[in-house]
């Protein structure tokens, strides 16, 4: 047992008015710990506290009660004796009458009532006593916000946990609750209050019960909050959002049908308000409430709701017609929030009282007037805006009427369809006479909307109604009668498009109509097979023939895609056959023939959009694609044909962007990728002489991307097949020194000689084969087996020296994926990672990098050109080494350290001896490539060594590099003696830091900041470094915005600000200036003692920046200036004088 003096001390420290809140909290925690560990019983505590709980000094009493209440809140899970709970709840119930100690009493009651399970809970009779005392004694609205909140929590807790006992208090409970809510304004309290109403209503489900008499009062209390409108200024912290509050109120509104006589009139009244917010809210509430109140109760409101809805949909001023140029969907309105909600409500009403509503719609004067006057709306452009809006409104009303139920669909058809048909001038027989005049836009539009509604109805009822039921319906009869003529009419709108007389809106309606007719679900279709086929023929003829009208072409293609995906999903074999025969075959044959009437990009778009609707379609198109690809490729190889070059490039892009990824996405189609890769290799193997062409680089890179993608998606065993095949072709290429490389001795010789030649000496075919081979290697999975790794490595080491980057990337990829150890060493050509590393470290690449430019003993005696050549080769070697290093680094190999040391020594190579005939620039080139090697090491690459291409990636490899390189570079920087060396070291440092994740950089922030600032200074001198400067600035701003590092920033504030001010006028890159100013704004939040001395300087340079040529920079400058100014005036009220003198100088 704890000794009582300690306990008394703790109690005193809590009750004492002079102790800080932290001390009070600490003493509560200490007492709670004592009780939890059974060092102190509650009884003895209460006995110790007796004086504080009963004294006449109201302050001490309040503190004492609060202590006990908060203690109980801490002990929610501590088991207590039932007598203890009994006496405690009795005490708190009594205390509810003592308004001075009410806060503690409320907390105590709440803590006890919330206790759960077998730890000792309040009995129901006691809970009833609490409720009674509460209702009798507590005047909720006279309390402060925190107490009101507690009161509502207590009420909610009572209602939720003791409903069966509370329910008997009905004659005091409901008025009591009404009274406590009345006049509440705080959002948090209101959330609780609305919830209480909802729970309360569920306590009395009987519609004639006690609630009925109080419903008026209760609703009156709720109704004054609708619609929820916050007047709080933006800055104030409110935890409750307007949407949440509005939602809670809505649930409370809809909690009982008893509210219906009050709620619906109120909502309808607000609906006619001019505030858009009130309108939207009313519509939302109406939709929700009508669900809960039920169809019977809502029936009498249908008429009023309909007229209100019609007004909104008809004349909503907010729905603005999109400009003609923005049209994508024909006549489309940007629907406002209000209209969207109104349409939702319309559907709700249809669901509940479909018959009543359709009666109203059919006899509605306005709709009738619009439909009757449809003759006027012949041409889209001739219709005034108001009429367009009306047309749109009627269209959506017709759509929803037809969609909602079979009965209403019948009614709406009978009422409006004949009139529309008349306006269109068609009859049940296929009259051809109508084709003489352009079709009526208004009628077409409404017709299409009506058809769309029917289709939606059929789709919706497909599951539960048999087709027979639908077919017998009246609307169906009517539609079947007219379907053929409608199809003709819609097709006709497309034909007139040729002479340019029709508008886009008309075309859109026509195409949409055709699409709807063609996609009625299979068991019910108003059109016969021949009509269906004629629709398809029409659409396909537009797509294959008419590419001049881009809008129509796009529409038709979209419609075909819709039809295709519909057919693919439905089980209707008849339709699928027609689609296959008419559309797919036509397109496939279209691809095969060398038809130049349509540009290739359009053809490819057709294939990629229609092909993606079904697997069988795409497979058919694939043959056509392949044929034209091979034909165009051979055209390029053999004749160097520039036309074919373009075709082949776009075909390859189509493969790598659309076709192959699509096969990948549907899964299980690796064969396609495999086949594609083999086909390309086969083609290259067959053609022995290539015709060099000037712009083939683009084609080659397209081919490499496609090849890489295809190989990357193949399975490991297929990859092995591909690589063997490719290697075979490589071997047969006599111009390459493969056979020499097979031999140990000659290989060294070859490496030496070959590398002196630059890339231009490689023949075109060689280049293709090597590049494609490199992209295959880069995409291999680690499990794929590569025969002859040694030879391949040597080959790439050789080609890489001539500046062939894909070779270097392939080298990195091999090193990254080779197995570490091979068990069965007997096979001579099995090669492990260690062997590969040995091979590389004994190769010329490695020795070149370790030589340093001045020690080129060979070069010393030679002429200038050969030295220059040597330097070039050296920088290529460095780049190759960087990719190898990346491969090693990503798999976490130790050797990467040696490699980094080598790279750094290249970077520092001393060239100060003036004896060499080369210019400084050329040496700089080598050093720069060494610095940029770090960029390769640390950045993510799209071309190789990424997840997509199955690289082995150890987690946190960038952090590892950072921790290896940072200490070395830091010490080298401090030792560096020439400015060039220092600049290069900073460059390497910047590359590493900007590639490392920020969290790793942050932990080293203290060391880094001075170096970062220095590197900003050094690197910003050269315009070529602007991207690197931006990267460092981002790292710096990342450190500055991290709250935990503000001390470090504070220490270095002086140098940072000076550097940022200089960068604020950096002329070459806008984002650098912008970011620098943002950083300065962030700095203004540092303690003023640090910032104050720099302020004048900052403000003066900001004056210049206000005149920056770029708008974004000026905006940031204004913000920064405001931050500085307001800060200054806050701390030094007398200072503005000086500053304002500067400001008002130029009035």
């Amino acid at each position: 047992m704890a000794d009582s003096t300690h306990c008394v001390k703790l109690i005193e420290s809590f009750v004492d008015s002079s102790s800080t809140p932290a001390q009070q909290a600490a003493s509560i925690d200490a007492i709670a710990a004592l009780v939890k560990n059974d060092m102190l019983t509650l009884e003895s505590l209460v006995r110790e506290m007796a004086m504080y709980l009963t004294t006449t000094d109201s302050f001490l009493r309040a503190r004492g009660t609060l202590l006990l209440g908060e203690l109980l809140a801490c002990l929610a899970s501590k088991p207590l004796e039932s007598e203890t709970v009994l006496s405690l709840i009795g005490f708190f119930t009594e205390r509810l009458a003592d308004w001075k100690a009410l806060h503690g009493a409320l907390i105590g009651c709440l803590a006890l009532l919330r206790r759960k399970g077998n730890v000792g809970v309040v009995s129901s009779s006691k809970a009833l006593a609490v409720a009674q005392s509460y209702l009798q004694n507590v005047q909720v609205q006279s309390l402060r916000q925190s107490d009101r909140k507690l009161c509502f929590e207590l009420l909610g807790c009572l209602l939720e946990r003791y409903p069966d006992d509370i329910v008997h208090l009905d004659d005091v409970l409901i008025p009591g609750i009404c009274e406590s809510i009345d006049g509440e304004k705080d959002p948090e309290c209101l959330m609780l209050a609305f919830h209480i109403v909802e729970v309360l209503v569920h306590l009395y489900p009987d519609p004639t019960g006690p609630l009925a008499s109080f419903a008026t009062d209760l609703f009156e209390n709720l109704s004054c909050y609708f619609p929820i409108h916050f007047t709080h200024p933006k800055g104030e912290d409110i935890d409750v959002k307007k949407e949440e509050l509005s939602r809670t109120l809505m649930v409370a509104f809809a909690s009982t049908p008893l509210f219906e006589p009050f709620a619906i009139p109120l909502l309808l009244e607000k609906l006619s308000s001019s505030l858009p917010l009130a309108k939207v809210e009313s519509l939302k509430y109406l939709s929700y409430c009508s669900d809960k109140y039920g169809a019977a109760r809502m029936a009498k409101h249908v008429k009023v709701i309909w007229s209100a809805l019609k007004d909104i949909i008809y004349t909503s001023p907010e729905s603005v017609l999109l400009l003609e140029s923005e049209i994508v969907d024909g006549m489309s309105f940007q629907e406002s929030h209000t209209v969207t909600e109104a349409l939702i409500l319309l559907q709700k009403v249809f669901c509940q009282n479909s018959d009543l509503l359709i009666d109203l719609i059919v006899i509605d004067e306005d709709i009738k007037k619009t439909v009757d006057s449809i003759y006027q709306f012949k041409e889209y452009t001739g219709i005034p805006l108001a009429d367009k809006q009306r047309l749109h409104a009627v269209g959506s009303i017709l759509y929803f009427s037809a969609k909602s139920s079979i009965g209403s669909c019948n009614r709406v058809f009978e009422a409006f369809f004949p009139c529309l048909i008349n306006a269109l001038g068609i009859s049940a027989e296929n009259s051809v006479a109508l084709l003489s005049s352009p079709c009526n836009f208004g009628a077409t539009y409404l017709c299409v909307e009506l058809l769309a509604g029917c289709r939606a109805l059929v789709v919706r009822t497909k599951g539960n109604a048999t087709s027979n039921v639908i077919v017998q319906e009246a609307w169906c009869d009517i539609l079947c009668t007219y379907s053929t003529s409608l199809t003709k009419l819609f097709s006709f709108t497309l034909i007139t498009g040729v002479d340019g007389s029709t508008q886009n809106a008309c075309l859109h309606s026509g195409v949409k109509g055709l699409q709807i007719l063609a996609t009625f679900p299979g068991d019910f279709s108003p059109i016969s097979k021949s009509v269906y086929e004629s629709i398809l023929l029409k659409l396909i003829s537009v797509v294959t023939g008419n590419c001049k009208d881009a809008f129509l072409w796009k529409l038709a293609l979209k419609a075909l895609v819709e039809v295709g995906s519909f057919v693919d999903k439905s089980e209707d074999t008849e339709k699928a056959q027609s689609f296959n025969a008419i559309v797919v075959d036509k397109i496939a044959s279209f691809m095969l023939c060398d038809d130049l009437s349509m540009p290739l990009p359009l053809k490819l778009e057709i294939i990629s959009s229609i092909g993606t609707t079904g697997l069988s379609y795409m497979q058919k198109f694939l043959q056509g694609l392949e044929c034209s690809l091979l034909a165009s490729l051979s055209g390029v190889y053999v004749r160097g044909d520039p036309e074919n070059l373009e075709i082949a490039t776009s075909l390859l892009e189509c493969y790598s962007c659309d076709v192959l990824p699509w096969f990948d996405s549907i899964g299980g189609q690796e064969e396609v990728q495999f086949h594609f890769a083999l086909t390309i290799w086969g083609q290259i193997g067959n053609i022995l002489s290539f015709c060099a062409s000037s712009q083939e680089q683009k084609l080659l890179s397209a081919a490499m991307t496609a090849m890489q993608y295809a190989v990357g998606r193949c399975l490991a065993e297929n990859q092995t097949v591909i690589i063997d095949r490719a290697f075979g072709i490589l071997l047969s290429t006599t111009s390459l020194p493969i056979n020499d490389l097979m031999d140990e001795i000659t290989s060294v010789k070859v490496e030496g000689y070959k590398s002196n030649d630059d890339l231009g000496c490689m023949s075109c075919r060689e280049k293709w084969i090597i590049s494609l081979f490199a992209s295959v290697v880069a995409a291999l999975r680690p499990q794929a087996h590569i025969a002859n790794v040694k030879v391949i490595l040597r080959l790439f080491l050789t080609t890489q020296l001539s500046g062939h980057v894909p070779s270097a990337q392939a080298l990195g990829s091999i090193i990254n994926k080779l197995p570490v150890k091979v068990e069965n060493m007997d096979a001579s050509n099995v090669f492990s990672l260690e062997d590969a590393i040995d091979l590389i470290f004994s190769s010329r690449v490695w020795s070149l990098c370790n030589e340093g430019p001045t020690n080129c003993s060979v070069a010393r005696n030679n002429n200038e050109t050969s030295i220059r050549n040597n330097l070039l080769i050296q920088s290529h070697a460095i780049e190759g080494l960087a990719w190898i290093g990346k491969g090693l680094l990503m798999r976490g190999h130790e050797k990467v350290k040696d490699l980094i040391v080598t790279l750094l020594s290249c970077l520092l190579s001393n060239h100060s001896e003036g004896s060499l005939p080369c210019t400084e620039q050329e040496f700089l080139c080598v050093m720069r490539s060494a610095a940029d090697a770090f960029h390769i090491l640390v950045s993510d690459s799209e071309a190789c060594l990424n997840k997509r291409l199955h690289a082995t990636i150890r987690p946190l490899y960038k952090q590892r590099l950072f921790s290896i390189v940072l200490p070395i570079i830091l010490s080298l920087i401090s030792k560096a003696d020439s400015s060039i060396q220092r600049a290069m070291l900073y460059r390497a440092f910047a590359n590493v830091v900007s590639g490392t994740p920020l969290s790793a950089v942050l932990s080293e922030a203290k060391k880094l900041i001075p170096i970062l600032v220095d590197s900003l200074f050094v690197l910003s001198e050269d315009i070529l470094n602007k991207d690197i400067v931006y990267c460092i600035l981002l790292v710096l701003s990342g450190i500055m915005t991290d709250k935990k590092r503000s001390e470090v920033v504070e220490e270095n504030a002086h140098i940072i600000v000076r550097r940022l001010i200089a960068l604020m006028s950096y002329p070459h890159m806008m984002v650098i200036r912008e970011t620098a100013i943002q950083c300065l704004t962030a700095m203004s939040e540092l303690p003023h003692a640090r910032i104050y001395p720099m302020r004048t300087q900052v403000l003066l340079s900001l004056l210049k920046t206000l005149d920056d040529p770029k708008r974004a920079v000026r905006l940031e400058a204004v913000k920064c200036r405001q931050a500085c100014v307001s800060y200054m005036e806050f701390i030094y009220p007398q200072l503005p004088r000086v500053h304002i003198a500067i400001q008002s100088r130029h009035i």
Partner: protein
Amino acid sequence: MVVGLINANPVVYEKKERRPRTGPVVLEDEYAVESIDHLVNFSLTFLHHIRDIKDPEHPYSLEDLKVITEDAIEVDDKRSYVRVTFTPTVEHCSMATVIGLCLRVKLMRSLPSRYKVDIRVAPGTHATEAAVNKQLNDKERVAAALENPNLVGMVDDCLAPSFE
């Protein structure tokens, strides 16, 4: 003396829709000059800041109350000249000078120093039009006003939302 609101129940107008700025253009010329003007779109210039200044009396912006409208601002970047004409909500509005002061301070803080700022009450909308105009364009009086801590506090309150 009980001081009531000068215009207790002002008319609040609907705001002009603010179009979001078009996304960054890919091939933007790093050295091109985007001049200060409002010809492109009212909301696209930094002058859109002044429409967010809060009214001294009500929690509405000057734009809400149509104190400032788009065509009441005249900018000439080449001649470094800005003229703002504002319309007080009522003729006898004693807040006109405070509104004018807010506009001036905001523009002083936002424009480069080469600018000459001219702030005027729209002709015929205020009882003491000439006096207000004179007061607002007198640099000594503006400087003096800004030394009054009460006035500066009021101005800062009004300007606060325009920096968000």
